[in-house]
């Protein structure tokens, strides 16, 4: 192997080194100093982010084409770097709010943060993997870490159950996906996406079968109907910071991997996947939204809404032939990262103050934690897609892409769905603002949580109010994907 190739792996190496170090450090650091380990994790995330920025300059700036290393199994391009940054932002925000969440709930702080970092490494790998083996491996890396994190609160029966369910569902879909990958390999004699694309032409119906089975794995990661049913149960049961992580990190990376696999590996002439994904997108957003309508538990509501958002993002794949599709996907996932993380963080504040996840129990939060409630307004409006928040521009791009690709029906359905979604998002605001509080007194908000909410708020507003830098980045990422 070529040692020089390692420089494209610096962010992954930094995170992995920190993760391994945390495992060791956990044994050495005395119990009352363990919060300090979270600081190490955060520092390594920041360092990895900086390394990603360096990658970009190593590539030769935004406009330069991507680099393929390790015999084409790993691709570093603007698209990958974008998703790496998104993943790092997600993990960093989650680590921030975990600083004050896990102490007192579990003694194994070092392991929590090291598992988070391991999951982060998996996300970074998913964004770049251009080989089926590596893809399977990185998806499984993220999954295994996530199963453990979801079940990490050992004495909480709900967390136990979430861990087991998540594991069983995920392992089964991994089996299906592995089988699908084996078929893709058999059809083309290669596991590298670029080779697969070149040799898939005589596959015929078998290609559909292979892509369909592979979709099961990706669908599980992004909560696409019909691979969505684990979502509400796991989201409700998992520790809330981990739920927040699950709702954005694996989803974004899942989309990155899905986009790369389909756009690079499966030529449209062989498998007309946009049509298939248009149908799945329609079903996913509708099912997610309608089920969210009936939820009173905030975490479950956000789980169903995250299914609906997966449906919106799938519009990008359905409208693939439009030049705005990928741009919409990139923008939406970033916007979704901030607004959804923010919503979960506020849910943490509310749960802290009321000891409940039920929406009616959060009544009057605006009086008990005014700044946090105000932030929730922004998050909810952004999730609904009301300007000038990031969610609005995300929807604008995606719906415009659908219109551009001639999928008027899908755009109309998406619009109708976002009207429906208004109902349950505003329901949360109503409880927060217009209902009198159940108990008096302000809710204490820990410093880490405060920073997390603030970060999400700034992200949601900044991406909405001044999208120009992102637009440039996305434009480049779109042009260079697969080139």
């Amino acid at each position, binding site marked *: *192997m070529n040692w020089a190739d390692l420089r494209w*792996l610096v962010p992954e190496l930094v995170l*992995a080194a920190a*993760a*391994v170090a945390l*495992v060791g450090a956990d044994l050495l650091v005395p119990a009352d100093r363990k919060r300090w380990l979270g600081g190490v994790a955060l520092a390594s995330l920041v360092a990895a982010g900086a390394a990603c920025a360096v990658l970009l300059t190593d590539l030769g700036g935004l406009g330069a084409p991507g680099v393929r290393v*390790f*015999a*084409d*199994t*790993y691709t570093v391009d603007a698209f990958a770097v974008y998703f790496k940054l998104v993943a790092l932002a997600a993990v960093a925000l989650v680590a921030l709010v975990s600083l004050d969440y896990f102490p007192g709930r579990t003694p*194994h702080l070092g*392991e929590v943060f*090291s*598992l988070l970092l*391991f999951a982060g*490494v998996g996300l970074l*790998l998913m964004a770049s993997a251009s*080989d089926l*083996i*590596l893809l399977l*491996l*990185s998806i*499984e*890396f993220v999954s*295994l*870490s996530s199963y*453990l994190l979801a*079940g*990490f609160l*050992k*004495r909480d029966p709900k967390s136990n159950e979430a*861990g087991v369910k998540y594991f069983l569902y995920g392992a089964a879909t991994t089996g299906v996906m592995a089988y699908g990958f084996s*078929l893709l390999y*058999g*059809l083309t*004699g290669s596991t590298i996406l670029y080779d697969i694309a070149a*040799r898939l032409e*005589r*596959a*015929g*119906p*078998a290609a*559909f*079968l292979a892509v369909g089975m592979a979709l099961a794995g990706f669908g599980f990661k992004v909560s696409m109907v019909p691979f969505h049913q684990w979502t509400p149960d796991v989201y409700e049961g998992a520790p809330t910071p981990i739920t927040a992580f699950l709702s954005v990190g694996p989803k974004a990376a899942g989309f990155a991997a899905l986009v790369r696999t389909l756009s690079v590996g499966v030529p449209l002439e062989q498998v007309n996947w946009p049509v298939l994904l248009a149908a799945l997108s329609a079903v996913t957003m509708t099912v997610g939204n309608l089920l969210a309508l009936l939820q009173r538990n905030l975490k479950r509501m956000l789980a169903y809404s995250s299914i609906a958002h997966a449906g919106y993002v799938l519009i990008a794949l359905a409208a693939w032939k439009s030049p705005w599709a990928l741009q919409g996907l990139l923008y939406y996932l970033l916007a979704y990262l901030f607004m959804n993380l923010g919503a979960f963080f506020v849910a943490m504040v509310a749960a802290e103050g009321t000891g409940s996840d039920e929406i009616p129990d959060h009544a009057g939060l605006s009086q008990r934690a005014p700044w946090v409630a105000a932030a929730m307004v922004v998050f909810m409006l952004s999730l609904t897609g009301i300007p000038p928040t990031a969610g609005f521009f995300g929807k604008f791009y995606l719906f415009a892409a659908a219109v551009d690709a001639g999928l008027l029906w899908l755009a109309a359905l998406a619009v109708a769905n976002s009207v429906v979604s208004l109902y349950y998002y505003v329901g949360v605001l109503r409880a927060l603002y217009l209902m009198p509080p159940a108990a008096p007194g302000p809710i204490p908000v820990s410093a880490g949580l405060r920073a997390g909410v603030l970060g999400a708020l700034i992200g949601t507003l900044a991406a909405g109010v001044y999208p120009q830098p992102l637009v440039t980045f996305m434009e480049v990422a779109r042009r260079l994907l697969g080139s």
Partner: protein
Amino acid sequence: MNAEALAFCALAAMVLVGGALVVYSRNLVHAAVSLVPTLLGVAGLYVLLHAEFVAAIQILIYVGAITVLILFVILLTEGATGLRVRQRNEQVPLALGVCGALVALLWVVLLRVPWGPAAGPLPPYNPGAVGRSFLMPYVLAFEVTSLVILASLVGAIVIARREE
């Protein structure tokens, strides 16, 4: 029928009968023990396919480690056999339908594909290539695998350990 076909048939029978016992046996210990012939049968097939190294690993990890682990957990949680409780759930017919449909679909589609390389005969099998493949293009995959093992072990130990 030549020796290869005979071996294939024997191994296939071993795999299928073992597999059937795994999914169908009421006694969970029997099911777990039936994993052994199944996995050994698969290992035998690997040998038939000239994948001796994979076969060795299969025996080492699957038969040696995973099966034992599973057996261990069954003994720990089910009071030996699990015979006291119902082991099958209520969706057997539906599952039969779905699995049957999937297998039928696989057959219908896969048996019609003209497998093999696009042109010319295949180059001969090259055992040395395995090692080279490990080190050359897939070195990253191997490094990552070791990380995955580390993460899983750390997490599994934390989760499985009894708290005071």
